[in-house]
C-alpha cells in the first residue's frame, strides 16, 4: 500500500475521525483508524462499535492495500509536519513509513483484518433531506433526549417518515419536543426509527454547508451520507411511547409573551433558585406573568414581572428553571405562546409565528410547588 497525499487533507480527516474514536475501550484496535486505498481513492474509517464514520479523500495511489494506524499518534505526527505532500507506505509487518520533504518517519500499524467490519446497510430504503433542515431538526430536538438508561427508547430522537410529512420527537418525560415538516421526504421510505442522540450530535457538524444528505435505513443501522462522509449508527431497538396522546386538548389558559424578555427573566431568576430542584414559580394573571423563586438553603430569593397577555383564570405553576429555559430558548420567533390547564398538568409552548412548512411544539411538565 502506497499513496501520496496533501498533509492538510490527511490531518483534517484524522481530526474529524477523532470524534468517533473512543477515548477508552476494552478493544485496543478501536483506538486505530483503518486506511483503505482502493480504486484510486483513499478512505479512512473509525468506529466505537456503535457509530462508524468513513471519510473518503483524494490521494495519488501507487499501490492498493489496507492498514490500521493509531489515530491519536498519527494525528500528532501529521499536525507537526510541514504543509505539502507526504507519502505513506506500508512495509513489512504493517510498518508504516511516512516521507516528507524533511525526512522519513516510521510507526507501527496493525493488520486490517483485526479491524471491525463495516455495518452492512443496503441502499434500497432511503430518504433525502436538505442538510440545513436536518441540522435544524437536530438542533430543535436533541436537547430534550433522556439520559436515563432505564428508558432506553427515550435515549434517541424518533424520526418518523410518513407518506405526507416527516416528524421528529424527543422526550425525557419531563419535556417533549415534536417537530413536524409538512412535506413528504424524497425517496419514498416510510417508517419509524429511534436514532441515538450521540450520533445526531456528531452528524450535525457535517450538515452546515451541505445541500442534500441521504438517509439510508438498514436492518440494524442507519447510514447518513453527506458529501465524502458516511456516518453509521446502530438504531435503538425499542418502541417509542405514543407521544400524541400526551398532548393536552383543552388547555384554555393562554399566554402570549415576548420571547427574549421571558428567557432573560427566567435566566436571572433561576440563579437564585435551589441548586437541586431549580424550582421557580410562574404566577399567571391579567398583566402577564410574575416569576419568583426562593431558596431556604442559601436564603436567596428573586422575583420579576414580565409583561404579556394572559387570557384565562389566574394560575400559579412551578417549573424546573433549566427545563423551562431550554424550551423557550429552542423556540425561535419573537413571541411565544403557551397554553396551560392546571398546576399539575402539561403546558404547551410554541412560537407565535411558525416557520413556513413546519410546526414546532414543546410540552413541559410542571413540578409540584413546595411551600
Amino acid at each position, binding site marked *: 500500500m502506497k499513496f501520496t497525499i496533501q498533509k492538510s487533507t490527511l490531518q483534517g480527516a484524522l481530526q474529524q475521525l477523532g470524534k468517533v474514536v473512543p477515548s*477508552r475501550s476494552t478493544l485496543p484496535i478501536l483506538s486505530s483508524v483503518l486506511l483503505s486505498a482502493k480504486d484510486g481513492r483513499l478512505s479512512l474509517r473509525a468506529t466505537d462499535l*456503535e457509530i462508524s464514520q468513513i471519510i473518503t479523500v483524494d490521494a495519488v495511489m501507487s499501490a492498493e492495500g489496507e492498514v490500521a494506524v493509531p489515530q491519536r499518534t498519527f494525528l500528532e505526527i501529521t499536525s507537526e509536519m510541514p504543509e505539502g505532500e507526504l507519502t505513506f507506505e506500508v512495509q513489512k509487518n504493517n510498518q508504516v513509513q511516512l516521507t516528507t520533504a524533511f525526512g522519513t518517519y516510521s510507526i507501527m500499524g496493525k493488520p486490517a483484518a483485526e479491524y471491525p467490519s463495516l455495518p452492512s446497510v443496503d441502499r434500497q430504503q432511503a430518504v433525502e433531506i436538505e442538510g440545513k433542515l436536518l441540522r435544524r431538526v437536530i438542533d430543535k430536538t436533541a436537547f430534550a433526549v433522556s439520559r436515563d438508561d*432505564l428508558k*432506553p427508547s427515550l435515549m434517541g430522537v424518533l424520526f418518523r417518515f410518513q407518506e405526507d410529512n416527516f416528524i421528529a420527537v424527543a422526550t425525557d418525560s419531563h419535556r417533549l419536543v415534536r417537530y413536524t415538516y409538512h412535506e413528504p421526504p424524497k425517496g419514498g421510505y416510510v417508517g419509524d426509527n429511534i436514532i441515538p442522540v450521540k450520533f445526531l450530535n456528531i452528524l450535525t457538524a457535517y450538515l452546515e454547508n451541505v445541500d442534500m444528505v441521504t438517509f439510508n435505513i438498514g436492518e440494524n443501522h442507519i447510514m447518513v451520507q453527506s458529501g465524502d462522509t458516511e456516518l453509521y449508527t446502530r438504531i*435503538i*431497538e425499542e418502541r417509542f411511547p405514543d407521544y400524541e396522546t400526551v398532548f393536552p386538548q383543552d388547555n384554555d389558559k393562554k399566554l402570549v409573551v415576548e420571547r427574549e424578555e421571558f428567557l432573560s427573566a427566567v435566566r436571572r431568576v433561576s440563579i437564585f433558585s435551589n441548586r437541586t430542584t431549580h424550582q421557580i414559580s410562574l404566577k399567571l394573571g391579567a398583566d402577564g406573568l410574575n416569576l419568583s423563586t426562593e431558596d431556604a438553603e442559601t436564603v436567596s430569593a428573586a422575583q420579576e414581572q414580565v409583561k404579556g397577555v394572559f387570557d384565562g383564570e389566574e394560575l400559579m405553576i412551578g417549573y424546573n428553571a433549566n427545563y423551562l429555559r431550554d424550551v423557550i430558548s429552542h423556540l425561535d420567533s419573537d413571541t411565544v405562546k403557551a397554553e396551560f390547564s392546571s398546576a399539575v398538568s402539561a403546558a404547551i409552548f410554541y412560537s407565535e409565528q411558525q416557520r413556513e412548512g413546519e410546526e414546532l411544539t414543546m410540552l413541559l411538565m410542571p413540578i409540584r410547588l413546595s411551600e
Partner: protein
Amino acid sequence: MIYSDLVWHRRQWDQLQTAVRAGRLAHAHLFHGPAGSGKEGHALELGALLNCRSPRDGTACGLCDSCLKMATLQHPDLHIVVPLPRRNPLDKHDPPLKALRPADVQNLQAQLQAKGSDPYHKVALEGAHSILINSIRELRRTAALKPAEGGWRVILIFDAEKLAQPTPAAANALLKLLEEPPPQTVFILVTDRPNLLPPTIHSRCLRLHFPALPHAGAKAYIISRYNLDPTDADVLIHTCGGNLHLARQVLASGERGSLGGAADDLLEALLQVKPRHWERLVNDLAQLWRRQPAELHYRLQMLQLWFRDLLVLSQTGSGEKLIFGHRREQLQRHLDTFPRALWGVAALAVESGQSLLERQVNPALLLTNLILDIRQAMKGREAPRVGSLAAPAGPA
C-alpha cells in the same frame, strides 16, 4: 470451537447445544461450580456457536469471521462484564472505564487478550471488588441498540457474585434487563459462589452446574500448555483439586523461579513473629486484602500448598509427590523445627480462612485468628478459632 484446549464438560455442553439447535435456549443462564473448571470458556464457546456461520458437530466452526472475532473477544455483539476497581469517582452517566487509570485499561485489554487465547485465564484487576453499577447502566444502554452484526447478542458477566458486593445495586440494576430481555440476546452469569447472588437473580436464570474438571482433561491441558512432565502434572492437578486457575498460578510463579516463593514472607513471619509484632503483620495482610485481594489469596494458597507438602513429606518421607520438590531442604528444616506440628490442620485453617475472607468477615480479626490457629497447629495443638468465626455467617 474457538478454544483448542478447552476441557469439555460433555453433559453440560450437550444440553446447551441441543437447546440452541432446537431454538429453545433460555435467555439467561447461571453457570456455577468450582473455580477453574472452565465455566467462562464454555460461556464463550456458547456465544461463538450462536453466531457461527457454519457450526460443526454441535460446536462453533472456529474459522468463520464471526468465530474469529469471538475467539479474540472482539465480536461487536459480545459484551463481557467484569469487576472493575474504582480509581476515579464516577458520575451516574459515566462509562465504567472512566473509573480506571490508563494503566488499568491497558491491563484489562491485555487480560482480555489473554482470555481469548486461554480459556482458563482469569481476568482479574487489582482492587476490583465489585461489578460497577455503571457497567450495568452501559449494558442497559447498549442492549437497547440493534445488534451490530444482526446475530445474537451475547452478554457474559464474569465473577457475577460481585454484582452483589458490597451492595446489591448492580444486581438490582441488572434485574430489569433479565426480566425484559432484548430480542436475540443471551445472558450468561458465571460464578464460583452462586450463594452470594440474591434470589431474584437466581430465579431469572437457568442454572447449570460445572463440576471440578476430571483429572485426565485437566492434565491434558496442563501438559499441552506448559509442557510439564506427566508426573508433575498429576501432582499439580491433584493438589489444586482440578482448579486450573490455581494450577496456572502455581506454574506462573514457578516460571519466575520461585514456586511457592510468594508464601515465603508470610511463612517466615509466621515462624518468627512474636505476639507483640502480630498487629503489624495482621495490618499488613489486611491492607493487602483491601488493595490486592488476589495477591493475598495467592499467598495463602501457596501457604496452604506448602503445609500440604509438609504433611506429605512427614508421612511418606519421600520427595516424590511434592509440589515444592525443588525446595525439599527447606521443607525438611520446617519438619525438624516443628516435629509435633499438625500440618493438615494448618492447611485446613488456611483454607477456611480464605473462604471466610470472601464473605467480608472483619479481615483483621480473621487474620489474627488465622495466625493463632496456624501457630497452634505448628505446636501440635488444635484450636479452631477461624472455624468458630463461621458461625455468625452461616454454614460454609
